[in-house]
């Protein structure tokens, strides 16, 4: 098997006496959509934060395309092709949608130590921004200030921002959070399109969405991966069933 795009090995992160990430290992192959699911408090966000560089692990390694990135700051990982969306929408609220996306494109298009020319008139950046907005169906809202966008539109904008950096791997932290039924359906459709172009790690609570989208699923409980496999295998897995039925003691003893 070829080198996986993302490899996580024996990652450990503790908060006081709690081990939020407990010896987690997982591989994400190029082209794969890998979902991470688990009950609340399973350590999904802690894991994602270590992948993006917002939190340092106590042990273990993270590598992207064979390169060790365990201790690289967030902005360096981004330059290597790792883009993320936030669980709680995090955008530049006083900028327009197009500006938000154009800045992401700018970060990957040469130096930003240019002081004189009007950046909003750089055709390359604007075109990249509009292409990304078009991709998520937001091009008609390009010139609207983000604080005036709806929640659903902001979730889509998060994706456009991530796409504008032309990532190899997209880390999506609950992209459906807070979306209504129709909005969720649109998001699933969108992700189905995107997965053809980019590898995705998806953290999500919406089970129908996860099972519809994922190539592989890893189940996290109490900071450990208790099962990892394709959707059919996960559906049949006894430990997973027990974890989601709430009988977590059994699971931890097995894990």
């Amino acid at each position, binding site marked *: 098997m070829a080198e996986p795009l993302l490899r996580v090995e024996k990652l450990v992160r503790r908060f006081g006496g709690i081990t939020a990430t407990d010896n987690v290992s997982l591989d994400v192959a190029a082209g794969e959509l890998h979902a991470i699911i688990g009950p609340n408090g399973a350590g999904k966000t802690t894991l994602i934060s270590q992948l*993006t560089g*917002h939190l340092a692990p106590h042990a273990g390694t993270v590598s992207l395309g064979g390169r060790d990135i365990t201790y690289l*700051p*967030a*902005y360096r990982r*981004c*330059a290597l092709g790792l*883009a*993320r969306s*936030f669980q709680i929408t*995090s*955008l*530049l*609220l*006083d*900028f327009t949608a197009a*500006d938000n996306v154009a*800045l*992401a494109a*700018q*970060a*990957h298009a040469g*130096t*930003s*130590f*240019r*002081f*004189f*020319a*009007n*950046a*909003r008139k*750089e055709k390359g950046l604007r075109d990249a921004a509009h292409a990304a907005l078009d991709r998520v169906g937001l091009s008609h809202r390009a010139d609207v200030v983000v604080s005036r966008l709806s929640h659903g539109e902001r979730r889509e904008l998060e994706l456009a*921002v991530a796409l*504008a*950096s032309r990532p190899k791997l997209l880390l999506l932290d609950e992209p459906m959070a807070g979306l209504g039924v129709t909005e969720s359906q649109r998001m699933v459709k969108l992700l189905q399109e995107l997965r053809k172009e980019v590898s995705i790690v998806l953290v999500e609570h919406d089970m129908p969405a996860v099972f519809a989208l994922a190539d592989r699923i890893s189940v996290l409980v109490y900071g450990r991966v208790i099962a990892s496999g394709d959707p059919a295998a996960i559906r049949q897995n006894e430990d997973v069933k027990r974890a989601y039925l709430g009988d977590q003691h059994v699971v931890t003893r097995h894990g």
Partner: protein
Amino acid sequence: MKGLSVSKAVTALMLAGLVLLPLYSSLSGNIFILTLFTRIVILALAAASLNLIMGYGGMMSFGHAAYLGIGGYAVGILAQEGIGSGFVQFPVALAASALFALVIGALSLRTRGVYFIMITLAFAQMAYYVASGLARYGGDDGLTVYKRSDFSGLIDLSDRVQFYYLCLACLLGVIFLIWRIVNSRFGLVVQGLRSNEQRMQAIGFPAKRYQLVCFVISGTMCGLAGALLANNTDFVSPAVMYWTRSGDLMVMVILGGMGTLFGPVMGAVVYLLLEEFLSQITEYWALIMGPLLLLIVLFGRGGIMGVLGRVGRG
């Protein structure tokens, strides 16, 4: 956008007033008003430089007056040592300010929020006490600049009108630069960092180096104001660096409208004219000025520029 046109009209009116002021002064024989406005224009330049980091960059520096002193002392000390050429004094003033900004910026930008305010204040106070200790250059009493910067016949700084226009040209030049900067790639990054630093890091921008460069640009611009101010008063003393002076600059920026191009100029004009006017009425002018500022901050969000914008829309 009618709102924009109202604030634009007022700005244009103010600028026209500033350009024509020497004409009025010579026609009416009122020399005092020219002296007053030279000071206003210089401090407007300092406020505009502060606005670059405070309004656009979100960096609340409470030590900006330090650069007024550094620029001023560069001129004063060189003059004292027999180097009277402005072609030496001004570059030295700018370079010294830039260097100071680089050092304190690199240290201060490790912190955020209130800590950033306090640490910039602390550095400015340190500069204040260092200047007070310069026995050779007057110490506490300050240093008289016996001869204004000499630009070998190019421009005569002792001529009131010429000096006024030099200051005004510097102010407009700096505002032009700020306008270019805030719309450039660099400027968008700095403003993005003000808006959401976490997001900017996630899309690939290392925050600190952009903020530091912005901090240095701002400090250098303020150093220019310091060099002009020393020429204007023929004197420089530690008092120009005192923390209340930094506070004055902040008030001018907030009063005029943070993050607007001409807001700080508007703020400086209104603040200093009020100060001048009220202090003629009563020696307790601060008692009137204080509540007045409070009202503007409480009810006039966005400063004068913000109010003008709303007037236009309403």
